[in-house]
């Protein structure tokens, strides 16, 4: 790169972004490794080694977060991929209500997560809720969606899918529309049916859309906090507590060292799952 280029594309352009990003994001991330090893009050700290991590793994109310976070991320991610793909296929086909359906599926993406959480927790009310009344009307006994510890996490996950599937669908629509017409023509000449089209053209060739949806939904699921907080606050008991909600609880209680240890654990958890996943997925991607 010559001198003129270097002067023209000066790193001075990068400076404002770098300063903000390094100070507000990278510095705290690095400091979190240190503060997770302390008992900390923001003004004063005391080094206690790995005690915070030991507490996190030993106490049942904290370690349940790992399991819940993982289940939540996997369930929401899988449902978004499957439903998003099917909706993507439906909404790229030649149906007349396509425009309307696209808008409808997409609008929850714009509604505030907290508002969605509150509205759905009302609809999932065990005795008064709309969902149970509808079920009873067709003869299915009422379900305690958010009060049953075995079920609550899945109820929240379903709400998450309701809100987030529009994003997955949009990605799939873009992916499916970028498949060249020739593939469909070849299929037609060979006399393939609709299912073969789905199985042998759409699914493999919208692979990069699938990868995008998986990565975004999975990472988003692992970091998820606001929906869970607005629907159950981690309850009943600790049944829906995920790492992010535990961090908030410890922060509120003033255990800053412990909260920061939670952050480090979440960081490691996300990195250990997301980087290999990303590698595994993109390795198999095909070019159109």
């Amino acid at each position, binding site marked *: 790169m010559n001198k003129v280029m270097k002067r023209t594309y000066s790193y001075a352009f990068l400076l404002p972004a770098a300063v903000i990003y390094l*100070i507000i994001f990278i510095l705290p991330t690095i400091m979190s490794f240190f503060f997770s090893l302390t008992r900390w009050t923001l003004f004063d700290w005391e080094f206690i080694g790995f005690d915070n991590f030991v507490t996190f793994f030993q106490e049942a109310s904290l370690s349940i977060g790992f399991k819940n976070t993982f289940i939540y991320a996997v369930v929401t991610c899988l449902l978004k991929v499957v439903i998003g793909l099917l909706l993507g296929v439906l909404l790229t086909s030649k149906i007349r209500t396509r425009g309307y359906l696209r808008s409808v599926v997409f609008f929850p993406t714009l509604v505030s997560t907290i508002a969605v959480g509150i509205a759905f927790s009302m609809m999932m009310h065990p005795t008064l809720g709309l969902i149970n009344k509808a079920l009873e009307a067709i003869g299915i006994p009422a379900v305690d969606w958010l009060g049953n510890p075995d079920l609550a996490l899945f109820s929240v996950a379903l709400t998450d899918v309701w809100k987030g599937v529009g994003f997955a669908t949009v990605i799939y629509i873009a992916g499916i529309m970028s498949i060249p017409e020739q593939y469909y023509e070849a299929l037609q000449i060979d006399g393939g049916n609709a299912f073969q089209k789905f199985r042998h053209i759409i699914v493999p060739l919208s692979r990069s859309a699938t990868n995008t949806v998986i990565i975004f939904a999975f990472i988003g699921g692992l970091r998820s906090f606001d929906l869970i907080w607005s629907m159950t606050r981690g309850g009943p008991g600790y049944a829906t507590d995920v790492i992010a909600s535990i961090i908030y609880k410890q922060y509120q209680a003033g255990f800053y060292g412990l909260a920061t240890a939670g952050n480090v654990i979440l960081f490691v958890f996300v990195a250990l799952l997301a980087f290999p996943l990303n590698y595994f997925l993109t390795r198999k991607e095909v070019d159109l």
Partner: protein
Amino acid sequence: MSRSMKRLSLEAAAVILSILIFWIPLYFVLVNALKDAPGASELTISWPSTVHLWSNLKEVVIANDYMLLRAFYNSTLLTILSIVLMVMVCAMAGFIMHRRSDRLTPVIGFFVLAGLIIPPAIVPTIWVLDNLQLFKTMTGIVLVEVALGFPFGVILFRNFMGGIPREIDEAAIIDGCGGFRLFFRIILPLLKPVTATMIVTSSVSIFNDFVNPLYFFPGSENVTVQLTLYNFMSQYTTQYNLLFMNILVITVPLLILFLFFNNKIVSGMTAGSVKG
């Protein structure tokens, strides 16, 4: 069954399902926002016997000493300031990240990617803001929004830069244009489409942000719209009609935005994420 019948029934099924799954929750919020307190606490979707639109709206606005108005002011200011700053820093950084390649390029790329994946460290961020005297200030929360939105934004701008031919730069450089003039007079105007996309998508995410204000912008003076929802919910009593009215009031601005910028929002979401 003939092909067109099949298609028609599929279409009808899709429309009915869309009403059941997507319209009923919205309708549920709407009708209950119009009811009186005892009516709304039954949580049904029947039409209210008397419509309380104005009285509910008034009560929501004046609650907690006009908290909602303060919240709207704070959220709007936060959204505008964050977006202005974010567009500037992301456009400049995206310009350099696309045009320049040397030993630092992969390092920068790695840091940006890390920002998309790593969850922010909450308490250490508070500690940093506090040491800079920025904790609980508008400046502080704006910087947080910009820092956390930067990775996505810069990727958006970098990708868009790929569509602007290098020949434009070269012509300008030969004519004696320096870097700053090149960027501000020639490149920045060409970035208008992606800037519009960024403005629309970021305003949705920042206006709807709950977590960052919760952590980094606490205090009753600093309330943002998402936190006003907790005005009408307490451990013991919930004023359902007002709660639903509040949901409606803070949702409507974005639904209006959606009506106008539907395509921009959708293209923004796909722009950064799909190859090809």
